């Protein structure tokens, strides 16, 4: 862990302000999740996937949802999009307010209108989210025309423009190409262009750079930042990579086994994290020059068929108190824009101890 975590220089603060996080909490909230609970019925029993997820995303803000596989990041995203359907999905409660309206109360027909128009999503694997038998132009024009009353020619112009926004300048030749003719990075740009073609105010990106090489990833992160600054697109970024979260987002929410355990400004969470899980996750990152420096988290990710009672992290937590096993810790405000769900932090004392 780098020193100087507390001594953030004034220029940094100004830099961060330039990023729009200055007085961001005054801004309107675009998306609010309140106590969303979701289960899956499986043959082996009920999987308690989301255990009361609450967070909010403000306009023109990038919020990263970080956590390990199976913690519910993607389930959260798919629930917002209304893409989890079927007899095995049980939404047990909560609300998802998007521009003030509860998405969980909408009919499928209403959601179809919203998806692509107001809520856009980009998936991890750009290969499988594009249709291999249509040219880029055909699939993108279809999206635009489904949501607007534009003519074919006008829709084509919109598509060309959105492709140039995502950094595909030779969009003429790209439009006539089939997905397999493009590289992974170009395909992901096409997916983003498609998501933006209808000027959706919210972009949900599920591991958008995980399948890409680091140099291409750096290009994509730059693009996401530009979309926020120039096109004013709010983003919910789902990633397991703390580096991506740190570089791309204004705020970060950490998930563990279906719970949000910590949420706040990126600097607060990733540098001055309070939750034991956040800090343990950071300590696992290979930063030193030998493997001997690596910390690990004891135990494994819990089985969501029978999640631990109380705080779901307590069996692996070195700060666990008696009450952690019995009651779920409430979100506690510990800073200006920084909340933690942890009994040990609430009890004070050793919460600042680094893992």
């Amino acid at each position, binding site marked *: 862990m*780098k020193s100087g975590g507390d001594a*953030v220089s004034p220029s*940094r603060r100004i*830099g961060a302000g330039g990023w729009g996080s200055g007085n961001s909490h005054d801004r309107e909230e675009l998306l609010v999740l309140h106590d969303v609970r979701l289960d899956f019925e499986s043959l082996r029993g009920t999987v308690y996937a989301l255990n009361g997820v609450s967070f909010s995303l403000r306009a023109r803000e990038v919020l990263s949802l970080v956590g*390990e*596989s199976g913690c519910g990041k993607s389930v959260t995203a798919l629930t917002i999009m209304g893409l989890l359907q079927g007899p095995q999905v049980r939404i047990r409660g909560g609300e998802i307010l998007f521009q003030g309206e509860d998405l969980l109360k909408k009919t499928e027909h209403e959601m179809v209108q919203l998806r692509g128009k107001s809520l856009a999503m980009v998936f991890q694997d750009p290969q499988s989210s594009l249709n291999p038998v249509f040219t880029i132009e055909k699939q993108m024009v279809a999206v635009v025309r489904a949501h607007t009353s534009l003519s074919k020619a006008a829709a084509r112009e919109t598509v060309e423009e959105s492709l140039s926004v995502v950094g595909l300048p030779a969009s003429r030749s790209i439009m006539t190409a089939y997905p397999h003719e493009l*590289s992974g*990075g*170009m395909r992901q740009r096409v997916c983003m262009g498609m998501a933006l073609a209808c000027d959706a105010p919210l972009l949900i990106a599920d591991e958008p750079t995980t399948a890409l*090489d*680091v*140099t*291409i*990833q*750096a*290009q994509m*992160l*730059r693009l996401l930042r530009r979309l926020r600054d120039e096109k004013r697109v709010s983003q919910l970024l789902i990633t*397991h*990579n*703390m*580096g*991506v*979260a*740190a*570089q*791309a*987002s204004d705020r970060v929410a950490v998930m563990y086994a279906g719970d949000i355990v910590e949420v706040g400004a*990126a*600097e607060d969470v*990733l*540098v001055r994290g309070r939750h034991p899980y956040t800090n*343990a*996750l*950071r300590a*696992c*990152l*290979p*930063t*030193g*020059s*030998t*493997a*001997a*420096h*690596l*910390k*690990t*988290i004891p135990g*494994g*990710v819990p089985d969501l068929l029978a999640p631990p009672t109380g705080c779901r992290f307590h069996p692996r937590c070195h700060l666990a108190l008696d009450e952690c096993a019995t009651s779920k810790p409430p979100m506690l405000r510990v800073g200006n824009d920084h909340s933690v769900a942890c009994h040990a932090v609430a009890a004070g004392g050793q919460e600042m101890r680094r893992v």
Partner: protein
Amino acid sequence: MSRDSVLALQDLCVYFPLKRGAFRRSRQFAYAVDGVTESVGRGEILALVGESGCGKTTVARAVLGLTKPTSGSIMLQGVDMAQAPHKVRQEAGAGVQVVFQDPASSLSPRMTVHDIVAEPARTRGRPDGESLKSKVLELLDTVGLDTQHLWRRPHEFSGGQCQRIAIARALASDPYLVVLDEPTSALDVSVQARILTLLSALRDARGISFLLITHDLAVAQCMADRVAVMYLGRIVEKGPTHAVLSNPLHPYSVALLASVPSPDPTQRSGAAVLGGEVPSPVNPPTGCRFHPRCPQRTDICSHTDVRLREVSDGRSVACHLAPETPVGA
């Protein structure tokens, strides 16, 4: 080349012919690996780093004998794998094992953990059941798996546990060299940390050499003694890990390092992002292969080929612009 190197590659080239119809002979090749010279010493960890398509996995496959080299030589413990008699090659090759990226697909779903781990030992000798079982139990203990899991099958394990089984299998034939092809790329960070700790302990305890193939520079940094950075089939820079990663000399190494997002949001990189993408290995650029993307290219780069040359003790760079005089370590 030191005498005690367990693996020595001399000017290794692997070209893949492109199919041009059933009867026409191929005239085009993908130059996947184009002149790689490298060696791995006993107990040493060498990391090959680079982006997808740079040829790092092809090098690994050639070392394992899964891909036939077009030219150049591969020496395993002093045995030339192209020329030595069959028996000698078999003996040398048996001491080379591999751990693949995806633990789930590299283990047979129909075999129990015992059978998976026992198979290499079984094919080499003819041990009886009891001594085989005790050897398997010992290996599972080494990699930190519960010995009660002996009769389970891979689907009952998590990704990290499957990777431990794969490591136990690799250890079963007492290898001197293990090729690790992206061993932790499919794992979560907390699991990755444990696997890396295990691998590093194995090197210390058993003196096994590792050829670590990774795209993750942080993994290379904490594991490897030396790194070789590859770009489009060639090594562009190599040397001791700390020297290369803290003071990269080749513009591509510099860009690669700058592209890694820092987990510290107060360190937002303002460095220039490398434009463009890796060119096709079918028509590699003339001259220095990196020149179309290089921010510092000059005229010479586009028409004159560049070879690795030593700039200081153990450090080599393939760049026209690298300092002529040896730099301090």
